[in-house]
């Protein structure tokens, strides 16, 4: 069963709302390159994790989830999609979900501004939520987006940096991935008028889920084929991303020199060789265990909300993020 089905969320409704963000914008001509490329991107797939998290968050408040929650959920996906457009340019990725990345179709400069359009469209929509009690909605486009950038800066600064610590890696992952997911749960809860305490627990739960998600994503670089990934296996290693499996493998003195030798000009054969060394080192199992421990912490946080009917949704999310139902 897919995640949205297990959560009893109508994905079509979310997708319609996401598409409405561009199709109902009177400033965007229907057949413009901007409209078409955004629609192609959002229709190319994606699990809609962030909207789903936001909707789950909204089930912890006394108010029934209405149009506002749906609109915030769509905004969260728009922010995520905008960041993917810019990420693909930064990473030099030619493909996204098996199709040409947006910048390959429109050119870099145009793609940068299409991503900007998506962010500014969200700000335009969220601007109508005024007053102190609505300030939380801006966490999506202000705080979470800033943290996302900081995660990217950290990744850039530490490319091929084999002296990176686990704490540095975790902070980068928190900024790059976890905080937007955490913010989605919190914003959903506050939109449904939950207490700050409940929203805070959901935020920490979402942060743990996001950390685990990023670690699992980093593992895929070692465990999945190029066909499944939509990019060459070992791509992170090639681009100098020192992820948790690499950090654990570096503790093995017998393979550390080979890992440290990987640089911007390493050949595909060298990358493949080091991938095999890391895969055979036990680093992947340690990474899996690390991810599981983070999910135990998420489970502990979830239990604090066991009195809510939506507690079962948190268990569903835990099940999904643990990879047992992916």
């Amino acid at each position: 069963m897919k995640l949205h089905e297990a959560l009893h969320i109508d994905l079509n409704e979310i997708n319609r709302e996401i598409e409405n963000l561009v199709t109902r914008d009177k400033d965007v001509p229907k057949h413009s390159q901007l409209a078409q490329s955004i629609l192609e991107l959002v229709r190319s797939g994606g699990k809609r994790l962030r909207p789903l998290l936001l909707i789950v968050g909204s089930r912890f408040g006394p108010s029934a989830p209405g149009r506002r929650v749906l609109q915030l959920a769509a905004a969260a996906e728009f922010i995520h999609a905008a960041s993917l457009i810019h990420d693909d340019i930064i990473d030099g990725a030619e493909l996204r979900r098996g199709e040409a990345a947006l910048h390959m179709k429109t050119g870099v400069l145009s793609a940068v501004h299409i991503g900007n359009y998506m962010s500014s469209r969200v700000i335009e929509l969220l601007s109508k939520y005024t007053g102190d009690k609505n300030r939380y909605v801006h966490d999506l486009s202000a705080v979470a987006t800033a943290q996302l950038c900081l995660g990217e800066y950290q990744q850039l600064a530490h490319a091929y940096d084999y002296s990176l610590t686990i704490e540095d890696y975790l902070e980068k992952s928190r900024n790059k991935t976890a905080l937007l997911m955490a913010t989605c749960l919190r914003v959903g809860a506050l939109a449904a008028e939950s207490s700050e305490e409940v929203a805070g627990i959901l935020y920490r739960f979402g942060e743990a889920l996001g950390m685990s998600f990023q670690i699992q994503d980093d593992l895929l670089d070692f465990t999945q084929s190029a066909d499944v990934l939509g990019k060459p296996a070992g791509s992170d290693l090639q681009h100098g991303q020192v992820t948790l499996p690499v950090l654990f493998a570096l503790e093995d003195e017998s393979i550390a020199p080979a890992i440290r030798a990987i640089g911007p000009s390493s050949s595909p054969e060298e990358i493949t060789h080091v991938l095999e060394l890391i895969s055979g080192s036990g680093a992947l199992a340690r990474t899996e265990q690390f991810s599981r421990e983070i999910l135990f912490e998420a489970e502990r946080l979830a239990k604090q909300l066991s009195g809510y009917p939506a507690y079962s949704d948190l268990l569903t999310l835990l099940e999904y993020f643990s990879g047992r139902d992916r």
Partner: protein
Amino acid sequence: MNNQLITDTFRLLEAEMSPIAGIQLHLSPAECEPLLPALDGNDLQYERKVHLLGLYIILTLAARRHQECIPHHPDLTRNILDGDYLYSLYLQFAIKYRELDLVAYLAPSIKKLQIRRSNGDFAEHNPAAEMSEYLLQERRQRGRASKAI
């Protein structure tokens, strides 16, 4: 030219920016000038002038960084990230200093700027004119409110 105001604004912006971003803010005093008449002519407190000029500088620099995103250029990544970070800082700064009404006022024109630029139209954009209109409108509303009292 109000050099003290410009100096104080840059000092505040540097304090607000994360050191992780490591952005060097370069905007000449002459480029800050378009907003100064509106700041001086609307009976604003000094602190608010600093905040408004800060928002103007952030917006101008964010748009400029993204305009410089040239394929295969060595600074491409840096320019994308700097622009992204500055746009999010714009919002954070506005929230912190309670200028969300200004954000709402400027939002449609900033969005239209991105649409134009995605279409290859890089005509000069100066947020000073709209910020001035906003301040004028705000002043009129204040005047009407005080008359009503």
